[in-house]
């Protein structure tokens, strides 16, 4: 599976294909994300990545559904656990490798790293760390499209249950509803914000209860169940595109990694690990594929190899590339050369 080929053919597949083909396509993106992130983790452990590595392990089913239904002309503002969705929306694998490895040829050119990457010109926004801040940015992009007379577009943005508690998220959600933009917000409750469990994050029964208070339509999903994720997120995207109010999808899942790879997550209780939402969505999906015989073991093996090959290619490309050098850097924070302040 060549990523580019996959990408160009994707849209027709995901929209028109029978459910099981879309299911399989989604699985392959999940597999690719998992494979990539495992590789990043091993590079990090080997001291080859500076800073941190943040993975979406266990959240691939939710994430892939976020990317899969978006088309060219849509906007996507992903967050830290969205490798699967980013790839499905069309982010080249090499962007990830270059950003993590600090290649000067990456979209961030070593200026920013890890998950802080994007291609705003292609509708994929580059998150800032401050949680909640990207929701209103997505709203603005959709307003712009409406101003420009574009049609049939939609925006999707992701957030964690922790990020939902920021003032910025609240203002973004509310303004989305006031502006009635075609936005889908996918809030993944992975039961921890870093080490903090739900009971110190919020006190409502279910975060989907927030939807009504904003004038959103609310939905919940089981984040371990790919079919459910595709069904509900796909539906939400369709509803937003069709002019319904903004959509809030709340997914339930357990983060199957540390907050970042520096974190051993020893605070995650054994009890919670036994919850149904703690299952590994990738394994669940694979089991479904095998049980329903949607693909044979040989095919699965091929897919796995293909994913590994793609990842290796991306990583080795980036590894060959030069790092940014301070004396080649122009140290200008603004685009207009004449207006750069000469301050030391």
């Amino acid at each position: 599976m060549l990523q580019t080929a996959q990408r160009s053919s994707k849209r027709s597949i995901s929209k028109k294909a029978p459910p099981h083909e879309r299911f399989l396509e989604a699985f392959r993106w999940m597999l690719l994300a998992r494979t990539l992130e495992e590789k990043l983790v091993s590079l990090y452990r080997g001291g080859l990545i500076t800073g941190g590595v943040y993975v979406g392990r266990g959240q691939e089913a939710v994430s892939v559904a976020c990317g899969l239904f978006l088309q060219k002309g849509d906007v996507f503002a992903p967050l830290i656990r969205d490798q699967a969705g980013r790839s499905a929306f069309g982010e080249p694998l090499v962007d990830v490798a270059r950003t993590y490895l600090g290649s000067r040829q990456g979209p961030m050119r070593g200026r920013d790293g890890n998950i802080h990457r994007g291609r705003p010109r292609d509708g994929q926004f580059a998150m800032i760390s401050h949680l909640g801040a990207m929701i209103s940015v997505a709203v603005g992009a959709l307003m712009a499209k409406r101003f420009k007379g574009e049609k049939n577009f939609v925006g999707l943005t992701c957030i964690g249950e922790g990020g939902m508690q920021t003032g910025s998220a609240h203002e973004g959600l509310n303004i989305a509803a006031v502006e009635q933009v075609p936005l889908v917000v996918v809030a993944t409750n992975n039961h921890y914000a870093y080490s903090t469990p739900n009971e110190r994050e919020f006190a409502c029964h279910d975060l989907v209860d927030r939807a009504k208070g904003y004038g959103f339509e609310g939905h919940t999903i089981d984040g371990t169940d790919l079919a459910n994720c595709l069904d509900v997120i796909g539906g939400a995207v369709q509803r937003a595109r069709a002019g319904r109010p903004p959509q809030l999808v709340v997914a339930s899942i357990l983060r199957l990694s540390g907050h970042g790879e520096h974190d051993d997550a020893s605070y995650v209780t054994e009890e919670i690990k036994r919850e149904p939402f703690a299952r590994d969505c990738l394994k669940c999906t694979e089991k479904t594929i095998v049980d329903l015989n949607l693909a044979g073991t040989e095919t699965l093996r091929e897919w796995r190899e293909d994913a590994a090959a793609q990842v290796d290619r991306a990583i080795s490309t980036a590894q060959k590339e030069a790092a940014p050098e301070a004396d080649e850097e122009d140290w200008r924070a603004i685009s207009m050369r004449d207006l750069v302040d000469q301050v030391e």
Partner: protein
Amino acid sequence: MSITYLEAIREAQAKLLRDDDRVFIYGQDVGGSFGGAFKATKGLAKEFPGRVLNTPISEDAMVGTAIGAALEGMRPIVEMQFADFSSTALNQILNNAGTHYWRTNVPVPITVRLPSGGTKGSGPFHSQSMESLYAHYPGLIVMTPATVEDVYTMLIEAVAIDDPVVFCEHKYLYYHLKADKLPTEGLPTGQARIAREGRDLTIVAYSAVLHECLAVAEQFAREGFEIEVVDLRSVKPLDTDTVLASVARTGRLLCVGESFPWGGATAEVIARVTSEGFHLLDAAPQRINARDTPIPYHPNLWAAHRPNAKTIAAKARNLLQE
């Protein structure tokens, strides 16, 4: 025809809306029949339907929305109701708009209008001058127009600039300052203006206090002292060259600004002049800022909190006598 500073802001926005489809105005109470807490957008919602939009009380989201719209090709103007409330949008301004070009190579052409500065009786939360906060962080242009002409041309320029602009317009000048007509062209952004020529002392100022400085210069002229007054126009970029050239002529420097004293624009000017033009100075450079307390409500206190003709004149006299 006579036009106020405030009307010039309105006219600039009318022109921008008229000439450029990409422009829209976003802020609390800017729309409807109301036209803004200060009427800077009076009538514009009617003249440009759908392009002058009231927002919820959500400064963070107002700026976030503007950033997103700018990334999709628009040229939004965000009006803060008072500069002081931009504190709740500061994260979006500094960390999102301010970093975006550097991080992604894609600039964010937003203009954030801050009705700034003190007026009598406005108190701690409706009087602030925040230019020094914004100028401290990388990635932003910070304009501080002091004249009717500048507020007009610079606002038009602000929207034309591809990078985020924090536009500090001074509320005290809204009604007090008038011009005969609006110019078609102004000085380029980043170029300071010699507001008055002189040879004995350079006063560097910007925004409303410029006029206090000019009045002081006038007063000293009667005594035979010629004070040169430099209007910075924008505190970032800050036109060090013009300031240095002036100090080269006068040998003496007084900086006056209305923001809080610690580390503000006046400290920045002094640091630049002394490190780049130390030998030009014949006397210790001096500065006057607002006092290091919140801005008082009561007019008696307020008048003594900000730089005023008396405090400026006293410092100027000291400098001239040294």
